[in-house]
Structures are given as structure tokens and as C-alpha cells.
């Protein structure tokens, strides 16, 4: 029990430590207003281009993509932030098992990611007439949770690479853009050149977006478990890869002395 | 001799909030009405513990902060109101490693600030070269500042502060974090600046530095002025010019109380969080003889006979000790 309580406290305190600089106003701006505007931007373009009143495919797609905020700029950037605050070296040096330090944070950011998606969907409800029935809510939540976890895995992988470089932000931004452009959020994957379609299938969120759109148009989640399972598998692979990279680079970073270069 | 800096009843308050959702406003008094004047060509020191108000005072005088009330005049002009007349004629260095563009070289940093200080381009190269030479950085001038040691960054900051040949230079803890050699080099530069007629106002924690550099010193604590005098004048606030510094475990309380009754002993002070006791006396040799006579030669081990210095004045005024 103590381990569990400690994990919760570690998660909450680290979250506060890195993001507590945000006042409530700032939090609303970054976590709510910014993402809502991004979603609205693409949804409005879609509405104009496809001349339709049913904007649900784009609302779903863009809402799902919002999980990148926490996947990348939460988990992924945590190493950058820690180095910036000067606390990265302390974290590496503490007796606590590093998995025990970072896992609670990953969990917190996964849940935060779910909230981001829900905020996006609510914006869709308020501004664009998106309607989710009660029956669809549970399957949606399941898919969103798996999607958030999956995006987190990519964030962890990229963030781990941050141990070696000074500028991991470029990678994080590119990954965010990849999610925006290659997961079918705004246009059908079939429009992509073949090789990019392959990339699309390996990215987090692609299957989740397809699945949510299917659920929305009346399909049963149990008939498409391959999509859900595929998404989970991607997330798991990325997370494990991320953690492996982290452990390796932790050692290499100590040798090269780049842990605290800023 | 005219005063180039006049501070009268200066008050500066900050508002800060506590709490996340329900915020309560709190007013912090950084300065509680201080007054002093600095003469032209002087090296004037501001001493005080952390949070005393030294940096706030400097920020008001360098036109970075407005006073909440009171007067702050530099070169005859109001620091808040006439700042445009003051800024070209002063400069400042805030201690620490900031205030430089790390990704630029020393030379590029100085070129940039030279432009901002409206130094004509035709004069810049010669000026920058001479300044870099003066602070001992001319052979590393093309290296990026991020690769510099602390001492080098500090010296570069001083070079930057001299670009516009200021009449008044403000230095906030200039030698903080420097090793003894680096600190000594910087102090030498400060003395050279003052020798050329520039007025220097500096803040510091280091008593020895203040004693070495300053013509006059003001001591501040909790936003109030507690002393203002020359170094010798401050030292004379301590009655006796010498003291015996004794390791605390050498004497029992009873022994100390007995020593205190001796006519040559002025007072006995235990420094807080320290292993020493200071026995202030004008006749240190008499006291020492008394100790040897009373307790034997072994008791003498580890005893130092010292001149009273600024640290004693500081501790006496600011606290950090208690009398036995």
C-alpha cells in the first residue's frame, strides 16, 4: 500500500513541480483553449472543403490527436524540463528505481491525455453539434484510454532520446505533426503515397481514430477488436522500446557527460 | 564634493499572492525607508544579509524598479521619471552567470551591447579590444560564452558595464561564486575603475572585500539602514580593537563567566552556529596571561589574537551572536 501511496505522491508532486508554474488561467489557456482552437481550425477547414454539416469524423480525429499534448509535451518533454530545472541529475542519482520514478508520471499523463481528448469532444459538442450517445460513451472511453497510452509510448521513446541531445523539442514537434498529418485525422489515409501509408499504420492513433469513427456510425466495438488490440500493441512496443532506450542512454549519458548541458 | 547618488526615505513594497485558487494578497516591504548619499568617485558598499534590500536598492537606482515612496536620485536626476537622462551615464553588473547571451562569443556580446548603448560603430572595435584586454579575455574573445568559467563570465560582464564609460557603476555581489584568485582579480579591476574617477556602489556579503574596497559602508537589515560610516568608523563601534578567538569547547561556562569578571575583558560573545567564542579586550596580552596563569599553558592552544574587523561589527549589528 505504501508503495502505491508513494507512487501517487511521486506522480502528483512531479506534475506540480514541472507544470505548477502554470496559474489556473495559464492552465486553461494551454490545456483547453489552445487545443480547442486547433481542433476548430481543422474542423472548419473540413466543413468548408467537404461542404458538409456532419463534421464528426474531423472532430473525432482532431480530438484524438490532442492526446499528443500530454504524450509529448508531458512525458516526452519531462526530460527536457528536468534538465532545464537542473533536477535531471538528481533524478538519475536517487536510490529509487528509475522505473518507479517515471512510471507514475506516465500514468498521470496518460489520464491527462484522456482528459484532453474529452475536452476536444466536448468542444465538438458545444460548437459543432457533435452528439455522443450514452451507449457509445463507454466504448469511446476505452478506445481513448488505449490511444492515449499508445501516444504516451511514442512520447516516452522520443523523450528518452532527449537524454542524449540538447534539442529534443524538434523531434517532439515533428512527432506531433506526424500524428496530425498521417493518422487520418484530417483526410483519408488512402490519399497518402504508399510508403507513407505504411508509416501511418505503425503510428499511434491511426487505428483508434478509425475505430471511434466506426463506433460513432453505429458499429459495435467487439466486431473491431483487432483495431483496439493493434493500437494497444503499438503502445506497448513503443513504451518498452522507450524504456529500454532510457536505460541504455542513461548509462551512455553518464559517460558522455551530456546529462546537464544546457 | 557633490553627491552623485541621493537616497532619502526610500520605501519599496512588493505584492505577492499565496494560494492557487483562492489567492490572498500579501505585501512585502523590501525597503522600509532608507537614506544615504554617495559622493563622486567613492566606492560605496551596501552590506546586509540575504533579503535585506540591497538588490532592491540597486534596482531602484539603476532605474529598473520604481520606488513605492521616497526619493532616489542619480547624478541629480530622479531614478523614476528622469531615467532617460540617467541611463546613458550609468551601468551595472548583477552577480551570477546571467545577463549574457551564452550562444554568442564575448566579442559579439560586447558588439551588441555597444550598439544598444549607441557607441558609434567607428569607435567600437578599439573600445571592445581595450576592454577585453583590461579584463583579461582578449585571447578567448571568439569563444562562446557558454564555455566560459564563472570568473570569465563575471569579467565579461564588467567589460560590458564599462562600454559606455559610465560615471556610476553599480555592482550587485560582483564576486559571488568566484574562487579567491578570480575574486581578487575582479577587486583589482574595481579599484582601477574607481581610481579613474568612476563612482562605484557595490553590494556584497564578503566582509573582507568590503573592508578592502569601500570608502564608506552602509549596513542594511530587513529594509532598514542600521549603520553608515567609513570602515574605521564602523570598527570603532566595537569598543575594543582586539579580541581573542577561542575554540568553544576549550572553556566551560563557569570558566567563561569567571573570565568575564576580569577588568580587561570587555565582553565575551558566542557566535551562533560556530565553534568559536570571541573575548573582546583592549589588553589581549593581559587576558592571555590570566588564562595561562589560571588554567595552564594547555588552555592556550588554538587561541588566536585578532584585530576586530567588519565581521564583528556586522554580527553585532545584524545578529548572529549572543553575549555570555
Amino acid at each position, binding site marked *: 500500500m505504501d508503495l502505491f501511496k508513494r507512487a501517487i505522491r511521486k506522480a502528483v508532486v512531479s506534475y506540480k513541480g514541472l507544470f505548477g508554474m*502554470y*496559474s489556473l*488561467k*495559464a492552465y486553461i*489557456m*494551454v490545456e483547453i483553449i*489552445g487545443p480547442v*482552437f*486547433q481542433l*476548430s*481550425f*481543422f474542423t*472548419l*477547414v*473540413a*466543413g*468548408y*472543403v467537404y461542404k458538409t454539416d456532419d463534421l464528426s469524423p474531423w472532430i473525432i480525429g482532431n480530438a484524438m490527436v490532442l492526446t499528443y499534448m500530454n504524450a509529448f509535451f508531458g512525458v516526452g518533454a519531462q526530460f527536457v524540463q528536468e534538465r532545464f530545472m537542473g533536477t535531471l541529475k538528481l533524478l538519475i542519482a536517487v536510490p529509487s528505481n528509475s522505473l518507479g520514478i517515471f512510471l507514475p508520471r506516465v500514468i498521470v499523463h496518460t489520464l491527462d491525455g484522456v482528459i484532453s481528448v474529452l475536452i476536444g469532444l466536448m468542444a465538438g459538442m458545444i460548437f459543432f453539434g457533435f452528439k455522443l450517445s450514452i451507449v457509445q460513451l463507454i466504448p469511446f472511453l476505452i478506445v481513448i484510454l488505449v490511444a492515449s497510452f499508445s501516444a504516451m509510448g511514442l512520447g516516452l521513446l522520443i523523450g528518452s532520446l532527449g537524454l542524449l541531445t*540538447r*534539442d*529534443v*523539442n*524538434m523531434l517532439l*514537434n*515533428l512527432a506531433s*505533426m506526424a500524428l*496530425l*498529418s498521417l493518422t487520418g485525422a*484530417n*483526410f483519408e489515409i488512402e490519399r*497518402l503515397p504508399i510508403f507513407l501509408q505504411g508509416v501511418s499504420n505503425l503510428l499511434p492513433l491511426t487505428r483508434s481514430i478509425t475505430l471511434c469513427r466506426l463506433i460513432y456510425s453505429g458499429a459495435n466495438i467487439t466486431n473491431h477488436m483487432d483495431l483496439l488490440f493493434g493500437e494497444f500493441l503499438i503502445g506497448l512496443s513503443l513504451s518498452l522500446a522507450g524504456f529500454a532506450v532510457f536505460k541504455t542512454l542513461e548509462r551512455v549519458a553518464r559517460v558522455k557527460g551530456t546529462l546537464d548541458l544546457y | 564634493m557633490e553627491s552623485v547618488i541621493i537616497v532619502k526615505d526610500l520605501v519599496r513594497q*512588493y505584492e505577492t499572492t499565496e494560494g492557487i485558487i483562492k489567492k490572498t494578497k500579501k505585501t512585502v516591504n523590501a525597503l522600509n525607508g532608507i537614506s544615504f548619499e554617495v559622493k563622486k568617485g567613492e566606492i560605496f558598499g551596501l552590506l546586509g544579509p540575504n533579503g535585506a534590500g540591497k538588490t532592491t536598492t540597486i*534596482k531602484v537606482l*539603476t*532605474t*529598473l524598479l*520604481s520606488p513605492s515612496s521616497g526619493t532616489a536620485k542619480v547624478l541629480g536626476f530622479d531614478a*523614476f521619471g528622469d*531615467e532617460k537622462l540617467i*541611463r*546613458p551615464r550609468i551601468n551595472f553588473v*548583477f552577480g*551570477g552567470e*546571467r*545577463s*549574457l*547571451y*551564452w*550562444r*554568442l562569443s564575448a566579442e559579439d556580446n560586447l*558588439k*551588441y*551591447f555597444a*550598439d*544598444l*548603448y*549607441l557607441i558609434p*560603430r567607428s569607435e567600437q572595435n578599439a573600445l571592445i579590444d581595450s576592454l577585453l584586454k583590461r579584463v583579461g579575455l582578449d585571447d578567448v574573445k571568439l569563444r562562446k560564452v557558454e564555455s566560459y568559467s564563472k570568473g570569465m563570465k563575471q569579467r565579461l560582464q564588467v567589460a*560590458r558595464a564599462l562600454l*559606455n564609460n559610465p560615471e556610476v557603476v553599480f555592482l550587485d555581489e560582483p564576486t559571488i561564486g568566484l574562487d579567491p584568485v578570480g575574486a581578487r582579480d575582479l577587486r583589482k579591476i574595481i579599484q582601477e575603475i574607481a581610481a579613474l574617477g568612476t563612482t562605484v556602489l557595490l553590494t556584497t556579503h564578503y566582509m573582507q572585500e568590503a573592508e578592502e574596497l569601500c570608502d564608506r559602508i552602509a549596513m542594511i537589515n530587513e529594509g532598514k539602514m542600521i549603520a553608515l560610516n567609513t570602515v574605521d568608523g564602523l570598527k570603532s563601534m566595537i569598543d575594543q580593537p582586539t579580541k581573542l578567538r577561542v575554540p568553544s569547547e576549550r572553556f566551560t561556562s563557569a570558566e567563561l563567566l569567571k573570565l568575564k569578571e576580569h577588568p580587561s575583558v570587555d565582553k565575551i560573545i558566542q557566535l551562533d552556529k560556530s565553534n568559536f567564542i570571541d573575548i573582546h579586550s583592549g589588553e589581549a596580552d593581559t587576558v592571555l596571561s590570566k588564562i595561562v596563569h589560571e588554567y595552564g599553558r594547555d588552555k592556550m592552544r588554538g587561541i588566536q589574537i585578532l584585530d576586530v574587523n567588519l565581521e564583528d561589527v556586522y554580527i553585532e549589528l545584524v545578529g548572529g551572536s549572543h553575549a555570555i
Partner: protein
Amino acid sequence: MQFKDILQVVLSSCKNQFYMSIGRATFQFCVLAQPIVYGFILGMMYLDQSNEAFTIYVLMGSGIVSFWSSICFSSASDINRERFYGTLENIFVAPGRFEWIILGKVIGNTIWGVISMMISACFVLIFFNKSIVVSNIGLLIIGLILMVVSFVAIAFMLAGLFTLSRSARVLMNCMEHPIYILCGVVFPVEILPGFIQPISYILSPTWAVKVLRLAVVGGPLNDVRYYLIGLVSVTVIYIVISALSFKLIDKRARVNATLGVY
């Protein structure tokens, strides 16, 4: 201050900013990668639309998006960065005057903005095999120049306003998409709800986009005149507000002590 002094300060600050900005990963992303990504996404969405729509909303639209994201993101966060470097106080009291230094910074970033606009345009032209339509080259060039000036005016104004506030960077996170939406950069302003449209017209880019639109599809001279006058008028108003802001900043920043603390 004499004109030559102002020029010296602005040019020096511009040069300093130009080199410092591109050294940062996030900025590299905004200038080099984001134009391509947004060009790609918008191009894919508008793939089946007319050549005129493609020219206006993809070629120019993504160019303007890239341009604004380069400078808006930087103007306020650059002030914050000066705070972090510890140099904000130094440039604040330099005789070169704070507002000219900031203008230099904005112009420095603007040059990168123009480069990013060109990158976007080149990408769209090469990747998508669509024909580009331009009726009036002269008007296009004038429109582009005025658009750049109008954006510089907003960025300058925002830089001033955000110098006072420590939450500058956070607010900046929400300045990208609202501008694209409200100014009709990638779809016509007319599809927005009626009550929002007046807001669009107090933003100078809206007028610039209208001028550019006319340069593509052609239109009556009166319309051209109307939009040009609107653009110039709004830009002048921004310049006036900027001048007043910076006068206010000098006092307020010192009363509120917002210069030094990061």
C-alpha cells in the same frame, strides 16, 4: 535619438535576433518543418478543389500560417527568453530604447517568417501538381508586402503588451490558430458565425488576405481600393497602440517589478 542611432539599434537587434532564433530547435521547427507539414495537410484536404481555391487557401494560406507561427510564437517568448538569460534588464535600460530593440527583434524574426513562407510555397508547388492561378501579380506583391508589415505591427504590439505579463509565453500558445480562423487564412471569413465576423475585421491579416484573394481571382478596382485602405488603416492603428503601450511599459514594468524574475 537621431535616425542613424535608431537604425543602428534596430539593425543590431535584428541581426542578433536573426542568429539567435535559428539556433533554437523549436524555432527551426516553426520555420523549416511546420511550413511543409501545414502545406501538406492543407494540400491534402484541398486536393479535389479548384485551382483558385488551392492557390488561395493552400499555397498562400499555408504560407501565411507558417509566417505567423514563426513570428507570433517568437515575439512574446523572446521577451521571456531575455528574462531567462538575465539580459532583459540590460536591454530595458539601454539608451538604445527598449521599443527599438524589440522592433529589431520582430523584424529579425520576420525575415525568417518570410523564408518559411517561401519554403511552404515551394513545397506546395513541388509536391502537389496543381496549377497556380494569379490574376494580378502587381497586386499580389503589394498585398504580400502590406501583409508582412501588418503582421509585424501585430507582433510588435503583442511583444509590448506581453512584456508586462509573466504569463506571456503561455498566452502565446493560443495565438496561432485563433488568428488563422478569425482572419480567414485557410477558408473564407464568411463561413464564421455572424457575430464573430466584426472581430475578424479588426485584425489586419484579414484585410491582407482579402487583397491577396483579389490578386488571385481578380475583382473590381473599388474592392481592391476598399481592402487596401482597410489594411493600411488598421495597421496604422496598431502602430499607434504599440507606441502607447511601450510608453506605458516603461513605467508599469518598474512598478510591478516584472523584469527580472523568470
